[in-house]
């Protein structure tokens, strides 16, 4: 245990929330809500994922020994849920900078080794942002619109201020998409709220709320200077905002703005809500600063981490914070109690855990550690490299033992995409050699990795996420 690697200086700053009035004018949308059905057009057929070919046994002159029949290998029960991902099927060498993605849904076939991959939405130009509603019935996505009427809708047009992204909602049951009347182009940080009917997003200085029932977007807070980030709490009651050097909470129900602290400012801060919405962790990887805000009391605790590259994530029950510190040839996983910021347990691994690539669903340029909690909080899936071999392993939090599950040499990049909704399977992507990528699943007890999707000489799949079975009755 590396107790010397972390020096936690805990102090508490209690800030009495100062209620500030917030303008709540109704925004008149400039865009009309238009129901648009996206018709599939020349959908790229995804390559069929195949497992390794079964070796052919050639009979020889020697009669085979009589053996007890080998029992057929039994596959573990397949995962629940499906997998969504984007893919641009253009083959290498790529012509031009514009990307055209298709959204695919991979559903289980007869077994975990057989997946049926079908397109859902075509012609998603540029780099769409996707998020499934909490009840898994709808998908929010962004789409480039020909805002300047020049006949094309391109990412370069967005970058030059001509075109702009707008928000759409896709309903899985009906297969219909509808544009939301958000009243501006390029909504930043769009996210669902917990009621499955509302979303938040921001402009440069304004935070908006919109409902999916067709009503226009509504301003809920306006700031005098550019907003640096917003982050809605998982229960949808608060939106954390950093602007004008202040970290504040907006009460979604009333629009009340509560200033929490001016201690936390500067770029590079990463806000992370606990799943129960009780805590907001703020981690600054460049300056080793770490803050924890109690959302109920507005108490702010702070600590200093070490100089190692560190990543923070919450346990599913919100009772622990995992701090992953990655060094050149080792990694340390420490578990912190948010109530007192003390370390309850620690585990060192003699290999650097992967810092996962910059391709996330909602924020493209973000990095996370290859250490992902299981849904029940009893295990952590790990991706690391040891002597040029890429490995996936499980850390059992009861025994603190690490069990290696799978390995492969010459993997350029590996990314744990998440546990299956039932907590039995690990979804991961890997890139190998030039322009070869795979989307695989692996059972937490090990065994073979089953491919869901393989792409050669083309782009890797991205924006990969599990789609759990709908929770809507």
């Amino acid at each position, binding site marked *: 245990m590396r107790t010397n690697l972390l020096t936690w200086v805990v102090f508490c700053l209690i800030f009495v929330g100062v209620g500030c009035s917030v303008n709540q004018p109704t925004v008149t949308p400039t865009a009309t809500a238009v129901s648009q059905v996206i018709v599939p057009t020349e959908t790229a057929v995804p390559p069929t994922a195949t497992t390794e070919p079964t070796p052919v046994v050639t009979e020889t002159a020697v009669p085979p020994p009589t053996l007890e029949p080998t029992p057929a290998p039994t596959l573990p029960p397949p995962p629940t849920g499906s997998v969504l991902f984007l893919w641009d099927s253009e083959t290498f060498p790529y012509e031009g900078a514009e990307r055209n993605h298709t959204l695919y849904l991979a559903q289980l076939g007869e077994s975990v080794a057989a997946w049926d991959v079908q397109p859902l939405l075509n012609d998603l130009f540029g780099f769409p942002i996707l998020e499934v509603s909490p009840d898994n019935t709808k998908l929010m996505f962004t789409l480039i619109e020909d805002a300047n009427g020049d006949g094309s809708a391109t990412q370069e047009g967005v970058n030059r201020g001509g075109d702009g992204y707008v928000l759409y909602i896709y309903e899985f049951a009906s297969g219909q998409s509808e544009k939301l009347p958000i009243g501006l182009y390029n909504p930043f940080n769009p996210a669902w709220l917990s009621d499955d009917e509302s979303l938040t997003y921001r402009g440069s200085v304004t935070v908006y709320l919109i409902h999916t029932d067709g009503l226009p977007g509504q301003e809920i807070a306006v700031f005098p200077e550019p907003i640096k980030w917003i982050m809605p709490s998982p229960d949808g009651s608060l939106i954390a905002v950093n602007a004008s050097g202040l970290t504040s909470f907006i009460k979604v129900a009333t629009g009340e703005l509560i200033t929490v602290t001016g201690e936390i400012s*500067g770029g590079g801060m990463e806000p992370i809500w606990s799943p129960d919405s009780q805590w907001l962790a703020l981690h600054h990887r460049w300056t080793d600063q770490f803050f924890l805000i109690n959302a109920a009391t507005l108490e702010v605790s702070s600590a200093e981490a070490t100089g190692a590259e560190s990543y923070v994530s919450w346990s599913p029950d919100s009772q622990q914070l995992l701090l992953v510190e990655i060094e050149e040839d080792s990694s340390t996983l420490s578990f912190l109690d948010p109530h007192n910021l003390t370390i309850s347990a620690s585990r060192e691994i003699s290999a650097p855990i992967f810092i996962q690539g910059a391709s996330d669903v909602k924020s493209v*340029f973000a990095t996370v550690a290859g250490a992902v909690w299981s849904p029940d909080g009893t295990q952590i899936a790990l991706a690391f490299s040891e002597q040029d071999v890429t490995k996936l392993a499980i850390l059992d939090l009861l025994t603190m033992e690490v069990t290696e599950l799978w390995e492969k040499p010459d993997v350029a990049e590996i990314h744990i995409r998440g546990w299956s909704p039932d907590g039995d399977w690990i979804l991961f992507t890997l890139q190998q050699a030039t322009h070869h990528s795979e989307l695989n699943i692996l059972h937490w007890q090990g065994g073979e990795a089953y491919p869901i999707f393989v792409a050669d000489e083309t782009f890797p799949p991205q924006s990969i996420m599990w789609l759990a079975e709908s929770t809507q009755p």
Partner: protein
Amino acid sequence: MFYPRSYFLDWSPDGAWLLFREIDHDQIWLVSVDGQERLLLDLPVGTYGAAFAPDGRQIIYTASRGLGFGSEMGFFDLTIGVHTVWRTDPYHVFAFPTWSPNGEQIAYILMADSNIPFTTGELWLAAPAEQSATLLAQQVDAGRGFPPAWTPDGQFVSFIQRNNPASLRADQSFYDLHSNIYQVEIATGEKTQLTSFDQTMVYDIAWSPYGRQLAFTAQDGIWVVEPGQAPIRVSPPATVARHPVWLVEPAPSE
């Protein structure tokens, strides 16, 4: 070579190569000045900035997929042709990473990812390949394209500080900036003001080769200033002159 839409990024330290971005194919090219050789660099989608390290062996790049996607900054090793990500920020845009003369530090500007074209930003300092960084200054002008400038001895970084950070007009209109030049001493973090113009756009800073004078643009003219002295306009009053570049450093006056 003919690239209808492209822009220049940087000269190699030996002057034999240049970097430019070809917009239509989103590519970064390294081209010899005689036009005989050209290399397509394997850099991320949306790479918009690239600058040679002083030893010419690597490049620092900045990339973003566009508004709302944040940005990343990393290194491209020219000896092996591989890039590595150094920093990512889903909420901010990295701009103008500028190597110190000895290549041991990098100053860069960080600004909020927003629709505001000419926002303010922060000036940061970091050592290559290390994660830690130091915030040097806030309210730095960002978005107009004014990179920080190291003194040739590497002891100071100069930058454009915005005097009217609350001006909405200055957020939207290029020429509504009111600014002055400041510098930070790297060893102490102490900030000093080099110019004191009032309601004037001061920009385009360039240190003389030996670091004695700083040239800049203000009031449609070229000025030079020595730290601690009043600036002197060196271009004729009746002419419009901007964007100074030092060719040789004049001998100090007696």
